[in-house]
Structures are given as C-alpha cells and as structure tokens.
C-alpha cells in the first residue's frame, strides 16, 4: 500500500517490460537498466497466452517470454533475482492469478483428466506469493472493478496496491466506483485502443486528467508515450507520472532480432529511460501551478 510514495516528490517514470523477454538472464539486465535510467516504479509483465488488451509489440514480447519458459513460478524467482531499488508492480491477466496454487503442478501434469476436484482458492495464493517476493502492486487489464472484489480483498490482506485502468470511456458512476477501489495510482489510458507507441498525444488525455482532478490519487498516463517530448507534454498537462511500455519493448525486440549484445541493449534502455524521465521532469517544471502539496 505504498506505491503512492513514488509519485510524491516529482513526476514518476513508470516503465513496463515483459519479464523474461527475450530470455530470463537478458531480461534481468534490462529491468535493472531501467532502474538505473531513473524508473520510479517498474511494471513487470507476467505473460499470459491470450493477452487481449495488448497491441502487437507487447503481444510479441509475451510470445518471446513464454517461448523462453516463463511461468508464474519463474516470474516470482525473477523478481527475487532482480537487483533494483524501485517498487515493482506485476501486470498480468486474471486467469494466471486465479489459477495459481491450484493443487500441485506435478500431479496436474500427468495427463489425467484435469477436471478440478478441488475448488479454486481464488486469487489469494498468488497475492500471498507476490507479496512474499516483494511485489508491491498489481495491474490486471481484464479485471474491471465489477469483478475485482476477491482480488481487492487479497491485496488488502497482504498489503498490495491494486491499480485500475481508467479509460477515456470511463465516466460517471463507473469512474466513482473504480476510484473507490483503487490504490497506489490510477493507470490513465491516454486513448482508446490497446498498448502501443504512437507519435501523437491524444486530446483525450487532457480530458481524462480533468475528469480525475478531484481525486487524490496519483494519475499515471500510459498508452502511446514514446519520447521524452511526449512525456513532457503529458506531465505538463497534469499527469503525476508516465507509463511507457511499447517504446521500451521495441528496443528489446530490435536488439533480439539483430543479435546485439545484452549490455548494448541494456545501455539503450537506460538511455531511453533517462530521456523519458527527463521529459517528465521538464513537464513538471512547465506546469502553471503545482496543485499537489
């Protein structure tokens, strides 16, 4: 329940990478590079086979990670192996959370009829484990507030933040219901659609921030942010942070395709992170009137 602190003093830079993309070892290096580059919170993707909310870039990252052997248990090891000093958020889909700890994985893989004889324990085992390895929050793109009660309860029990996504179409009662449940920060979806870097910053961003202005929770804007200038504009428009995924995953993908050495790719990620963080800082300086104490 402590992610808010990352947004307290200055605009936060929140990068995303799919854990294990393109390999376990390389991915550790990449995430650590982001931390060096100035990340305030890191969103780590735990890949699910049907990522319905992702664009092509992150879909492909998820495929690479799965093919390299990523599983929920490996993911938790990955978090433990990471040597970073920033808060970590796990971004994944609900079925992986829901299934975790369902019986013993050894006995399930024996090709027997798997019709569940044990009732699901729900999301609790996953959250317990996440907390144990030091994850501080969860983002679950296919879990709207309406279905979130069991997860919210488990997060409360183990002290994790549950981050919700506010879409441009989220208004009125829906918005209120969501903000009552959210903690850590709200993920403000800058425009309709799925994740992916774009050249433009949508007007919808300003509208969304305006709708949220009454709420005292950090607002991190994501979807489509690609450059330091983008980050600058978003923050100057009132965001408390910027979330950047596809622009970073592109660097990982390109390095993988070209067979570049891991350390070179890591350097590029670090540089990109710095560009984005610096942009965010410039944006904060441009704000007419700081509204937060």
């Amino acid at each position, binding site marked *: 329940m402590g992610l808010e602190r990352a947004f307290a003093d200055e605009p936060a830079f929140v990068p995303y990478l799919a854990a294990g993309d393109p390999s376990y070892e390389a991915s550790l290096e990449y995430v650590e590079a982001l931390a060096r580059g100035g990340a305030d919170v890191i969103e780590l993707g735990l890949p*699910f*086979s*049907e*990522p*319905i*909310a*992702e*664009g*092509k870039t992150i*879909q*492909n990252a998820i*495929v690479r990670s*799965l093919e390299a052997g990523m*599983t*929920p*248990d490996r993911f938790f090891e990955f978090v433990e192996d990471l040597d970073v000093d920033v808060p970590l958020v796990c971004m994944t*889909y*609900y*079925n*992986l*959370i*829901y*299934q*975790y700890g*369902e*019986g013993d*994985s050894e006995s*399930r*893989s024996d*090709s027997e*009829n*798997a*019709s*569940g004889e044990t009732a*699901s324990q729900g999301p609790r085992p996953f959250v317990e484990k996440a907390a144990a390895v030091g994850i501080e929050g969860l983002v679950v*793109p*296919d*879990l*709207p507030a*309406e*279905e979130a009660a069991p997860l919210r309860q488990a997060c409360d029990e183990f002290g994790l933040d549950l981050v*919700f*996504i*506010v*879409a*441009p*179409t*989220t*208004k009125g009662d*829906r918005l209120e219901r*969501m903000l009552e449940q959210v903690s850590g920060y709200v993920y403000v*979806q800058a425009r*309709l*659609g*799925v994740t992916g870097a774009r050249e433009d910053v949508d007007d919808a961003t300003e509208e969304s921030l305006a709708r949220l202005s009454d709420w005292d929770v950090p607002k991190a804007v994501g979807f489509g942010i690609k450059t330091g200038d983008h980050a600058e504009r978003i923050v100057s428009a009132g965001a408390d942070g910027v979330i950047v995924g596809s622009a970073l995953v592109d660097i990982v993908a390109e390095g993988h395709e070209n067979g570049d050495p891991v350390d070179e790719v890591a350097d590029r990620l670090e540089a990109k992170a710095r560009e984005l963080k610096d942009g965010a800082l410039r944006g904060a300086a441009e704000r007419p009137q700081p509204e937060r104490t």
Partner: protein
Amino acid sequence: PKFGEYGGQYVPEALMPAIEELTDAYQRYVLENEDGFMDEFRERLADFGGRPTPLQYADQLSARYDTDVYLKREDLLHGGAHKLNNALGQVLLAKYMGKERIIAETGAGQHGTATAMAAAHLDMPCEIYMGETDIARQRPNVFRMRINGSEVNPVTVGRGTLKEAISETMRDWATTVENTHYVIGSIVGPHPFPKMVRDFQAVISEEAREQAIEKTGGLPDSVLACAGGGSNTMGTFAHFVDDDGEPRSPEQSSDDEPRDRVDLYAVEAGGSSLQVDEEEGVAPNSATLSTGDEGVLHGARTKLLQDSDGQIMESHSVSAGLDYAGVGPELAHLVDEDRVTPVNVDDDAALEAFHRLSQDEGIIPALETAHAFGYLEEHHDEVGDTVIVNVSGRGDKDLETVIEETSKRDLDIAPDMSIFERVGGGGL
C-alpha cells in the same frame, strides 16, 4: 450476469461502457421487444433465413437404432448453419443501437460468413478477423465473406487461428467501441453475450419442442447437440432445460405419456485423445466440458482447457468449428448442475458418422454436427425411444477435410474417391 459462478465480465475497462450499453440494449430490445425489435428479428429470420427449419423423421437411422430419431434441420438455414440466428440478431441489434460498423472474429469461417451475410442484408459495413492459418485452409469461406462485401483482416500473431482472432477482434473493439458492435459468434464472452446469443439461438429449441409435440404427441426422451463454444447446443437445449422432472427409469420406458424429463447431451470433440500434453500446452481434443476446469478466458469465467499455470492450451479437433479451448459459461453451469450431460466422441467416430448420415439419409452434415451422430451410433440404447438430434450445419465446407482425413484412416464406410484419378482431375 452469472450462471452460478460462471460468466461475468472480464474485459478491459475501455470496453466496459460498451458492454453496459449493450446490456441495456439487450434488456430493452431483446427482452422487452422495444420498437418491435424481436418482431422484426423473427420476420427476417423467417423471410431471409428460412425459418422455421423442419423437424424431420430420419427413416434409415430410426430403423437402424430402433429408436425414433428426429433431425432438427438447421443445416437448411441460409448460409448452411445455425450461425445466422445469432449473427442476424446481433447485426440488427447494432442497427437499433445506432452503431455504424460491425466486427467479428471467425475460426472455420462459419460465423464470419453468417455475419457477412447479415451485414450485407442489413447494409452495415463489416470487418472479419481471421487467423492467417485459417484463411489459408478455409478459402471458400473467405471468398464468401469477401463476395458478401466484408473486409477480412488476417491475424498473423501466434498460431493464426480462432483464439488469436478473438483477441484481435477485442483489440479492435477496444479502439472503436463508440461506433462499432462486436458480433461474438457463440455463447461465450462477457455478459450479456452468453445470454443474448442463447436467446437468439433459442428459436431452434422453441421450434423443435413445438414440432416434437405436434409430430409425436409429446416430448422427446433426449436431445443431442454437438458442443464447441456451445451456441447450437444451448439453442437446441434452451426450451427443454425446464423439462427437468424425475429422471426416466428403465421400468417406465414404454408408456406413451409425454415425459417430464428430457435428457440433454452435449457432444464434444474427443479429438484423437482425451490425454493432454502439458509440456507442449496441447490438448488433442476440444472436450472442455468433460475435461476442462474453471478459469477466465475471453471475458468470462467458465470451463477451460488450460495447463496448471492457467495458460490456455491449444485444442484440436477434426472439426474446425469445435476447435476451441473454452465453452459457454451457461453450459458449464448446467453440466455442474447435472442438467446437461457432457459426452464426447473422437475424430474417427465423427468421420464415420459423417459418412453414415450422408449415405443413409442424404444429408451431408458439418463435421461439427457429425459428432452428435457419432454419439448416437455408440449410445443409441441409452437415449430413450425418441431422440432429437440437431443438424447444426451442412458439410459442404468440410468436403476437402473429409476426403483427406478419410483417406488417412481407410474407413470401411467411406466411398472410394478414385474417380478423380480415372478422369485425370487435379489432386486433393
């Protein structure tokens, strides 16, 4: 919006407002017939779709099994399958809602062709997402969609099949939700889709129940339908679900009174085996109701084919239309409640049943449909004196697959196809 624990709305936040809008429209137009929506739907189903479809007595099968076998002939619906019931309903609903664009996903192409036809009929622009693997192996259906004026968008991610196409269509919808309606093809997805699709398909059992009473003076002992996602299944079962009196006991089997209890059999694709290869993430079947367990996929909690981590498995069936790792939440619930019996037959039995129905009754069924007849062949002693089998679609689309799969197996029942060699026609 739930069926017991199943169902729900597990979708990205961006879609929730559209889902709420749709839920409202479903309530008003479908359930309350606002603006005469249901009247127009029924009229178009009749005039454009060709409803009612017959309930036909099957002379040869009845003699073969010493059981009165009735065929509900959804294969005669426009487009060749039950799919149009739903596609027409949803495209018409989108029009009532003021939407300007239709999107849909398709695997084997049956839902895509039905949606393309309905969209052309109702003058709505339409785009269909289809995996590139499926595009290559279902060419005639791609032709049909294009000829009906729909765009077909190839999906190149992953295996390029139905699962990926559904995900891709959800992505489109998340971007275009304000003016676009996503026509989901089965009783899957977030609420209100499972209920709404069932309601559009329920015309099958509404007719069949009336026709059975008219023709036989009572209710059937059993109703059989194949089950993939489950839209023909629930459509065929819906109006029989409440016929749930005491189970028939063997001693009562010869009375003539209408029965209180109609047994409902959902026949899934057993594929080549019910065993799964967890290492490869592959289930060589699509028997979700029989072997799957609870999880969340494509917007709903339901039974799934998944590994112990919760990753979705690749399902398999000789029938592309049954080849799906999930199933409608309502069916999952009815199975848990023991109201629907999940059974399955393997690829071989389905192929044999395909040939049997073609030769004995002069009806070439879809391979999906053939599964229901495969079960009848194996278990006709257990389905009572009168059984209705839903002929969910015709098999024209499956001819090449059948020839190929049959030649691999050397089935006794299959006709010899060497005529093409004799006249020097091209290869298969």
